[in-house]
């Protein structure tokens, strides 16, 4: 086996793990990292996106539009959830655990009752390609590109747009922002919707590659929390490097010792990083910068 094949396969595994970590974490990074809301219903937003995507594709929509529909519906559900529940809990972040756990119970069981225990998959598009002795799925490359796209998009959104600046201002010093005339309620609402939409996007993107069941969100949640905790509060400075570091840990451990150690490696990484950098990677970067 030649070097090029080995290098490519390592890169592919890294990219695959990176995409999964970043896509599952982005929505949570916005909601948890920025707003401090511990959203245990994050997985259910992902499930919502996946279900809507699958349903619209079954109804005849092409996959990209289906994913878009999943993203939009999740964001709308996010607006609703923020309005009814989360809005009242901003000064009590730990209570959000209980409330969102309740929401997640309602969402999983409600989906089971209304839609049934499973949903037909949509099939992975694009087929495969060959490098050396191995064949790879093209869609996985698409996922990697999507993860990069989401990161760049978030960076642009929060740094270059008026909404982004207002959102960061509101989240850092809410009363100051309010005093300066920012509609902080609207900003919170939109930020939460953005997080929910990103979760929906992750669900939509992974819908073609996974089993669609009401409990599917649970498989994302650990990776998502791990990435966000390691990343810290800043979405771009945190999530991207955290995703990269964890992807290396996970893909190396998995190829070396198997999937179990890939997972245990992630958890150990979290404990070590939290011990060494209590504010996550982005906290470390920001402190170094100032």
């Amino acid at each position, binding site marked *: 086996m030649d070097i090029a094949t080995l290098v490519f396969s390592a890169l592919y*595994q890294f990219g695959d793990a990176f995409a999964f970590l970043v896509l599952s974490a982005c929505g949570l990074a916005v909601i948890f990292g920025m707003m401090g809301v511990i959203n245990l219903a994050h997985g259910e937003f992902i499930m919502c996106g996946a279900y809507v995507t699958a349903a619209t594709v079954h109804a005849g929509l092409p996959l990209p539009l289906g994913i878009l529909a999943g993203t939009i519906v999740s964001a709308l559900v996010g607006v609703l959830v923020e309005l009814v529940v989360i809005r009242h809990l901003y000064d009590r972040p730990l209570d959000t655990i209980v409330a969102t756990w309740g929401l997640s119970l309602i969402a999983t069981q409600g989906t089971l009752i209304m839609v049934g225990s499973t949903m*037909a998959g949509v099939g992975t598009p694009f087929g495969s390609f060959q490098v050396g002795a191995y064949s790879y*799925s093209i869609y996985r490359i698409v996922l990697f590109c999507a993860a990069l796209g989401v990161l760049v998009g978030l960076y642009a959104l929060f740094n270059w747009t008026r909404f982004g600046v207002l959102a960061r201002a509101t989240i850092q010093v809410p009363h100051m922002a309010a005093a300066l005339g920012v509609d902080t309620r609207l900003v919170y609402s939109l930020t939460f919707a953005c997080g929910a939409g990103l979760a929906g996007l992750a669900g939509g993107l992974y819908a073609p590659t996974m089993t669609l069941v009401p409990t599917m969100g649970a498989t994302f949640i650990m990776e998502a929390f791990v990435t966000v905790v390691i990343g810290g509060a800043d979405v771009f400075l945190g999530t991207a490097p955290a995703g990269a570091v964890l992807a290396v840990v996970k893909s190396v451990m998995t190829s070396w010792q*198997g999937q179990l150690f890939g997972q245990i490696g992630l958890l150990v990484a979290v404990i070590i990083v939290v011990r060494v950098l209590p504010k996550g990677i982005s906290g470390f970067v920001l402190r170094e910068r100032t």
Partner: protein
Amino acid sequence: MSKSVLRGLRAAALTGTLVLGSSLALAAENPIKLGVLEDQSGDFAAATIGKVHAIQLATEEINKAGGIMGRPIELVAYDTQSDNTRYQEFMRRVLQRDKVDVVFAGFSSASREAYRPIVDQFNGFAFYNNQYEGGVCDGHMIVTGAVPEQQFSTLIPYMMEKYGKNVYTLAADYNFGQISAEWVRKIVKENGGKMAGEEFIPLGVSQFSQSIQNIQKAKPDFVVTLLVGTAQASYYEQAASANVNLPMASSVNVGQGYEHKRFKPPSLKDMYVTTNYIEEIDSPKSKEFYAKFKAKFPSEPYVNQEAENSYLAVYLYKQMVERAKSTKREDIRKVIALGDVCMDAPEGKVCIDPKSQHMSHTIYLAKVGADHSISFPKTWEDIKPYWLGEAGCDLTKKDPMAQYTPSNPPPKP
């Protein structure tokens, strides 16, 4: 609590009673109580709701035809929510409070191990109507599902003859997967084959890129997939999109989680499964069962092997009670010890093995085609659950109330 919630609560309570209604209407003074503990919500619901429906169907049929010895069956059903602690709570409830005569309980092996000490302690009588890793030698239990020796001693030699002797196993990293993998290893070796590789996947993992690459590196002739749970089932879609294109053999898929109906073709192409029942089986008995099932539960997504196991278990229980003229466990076990408790189930003839209280089965080899249609290249009749008996478990003589595995067999007398 809002009005609509209250209304919902009442509606839920009503449907609950309606489900039991068919038997309650009959309620003579002295019904035979059958406890049902199955996961109607949570992770496992997809594969187990059909079991509850099958029990309801059989109960309705039996009650219409006059019950068991003239006594109607009354179902006492609880939703165990795919949660082991719920099994512990409700097993105690059905045995102590509801005082049921028999319990049909459990999907995952962990749930069975959770409730088994309670059944043993209260001297209850339980049916585990599920395919599993085998080895339970307990006089309080009857197992109607298939066990590894029945599924692998048929499947693996067939696959090796047809595709080659290099085998790769991809299994869930817990008791079922590890013990099944042990069986595969053993049978491959006995047939002169070689393990190209073995990999274990923790439960709940849904991403398989690395495993797919490992398989391609090992270049096996076929892959034995012993993946469990909905998350792990994502493997097939991911393997298909990476063009792995190897034949697959399994004892769990299709027959339990009807993956061929849920995934888009051709992700399960060339999957071979040994199962004792699936709804596609084309015999008059099977078709009749399927028609009855669909007539009562038209929206049932699939009639899987566990549904059939549960259905036949009710009839088997009826036969044993009627022959023993008693619902006492000791009397029923005397009937089992005769060794001729058999019946014509939808799958074909099945019998209870008195030594292990497991069942012999007709094993069907189901092949999934490129369009996910099912064909049956081969059928084995009367395949016995031989291992426990050979290893030294004999419930007619001694009841150790334990679970054994090939690497941890019963102690030699």
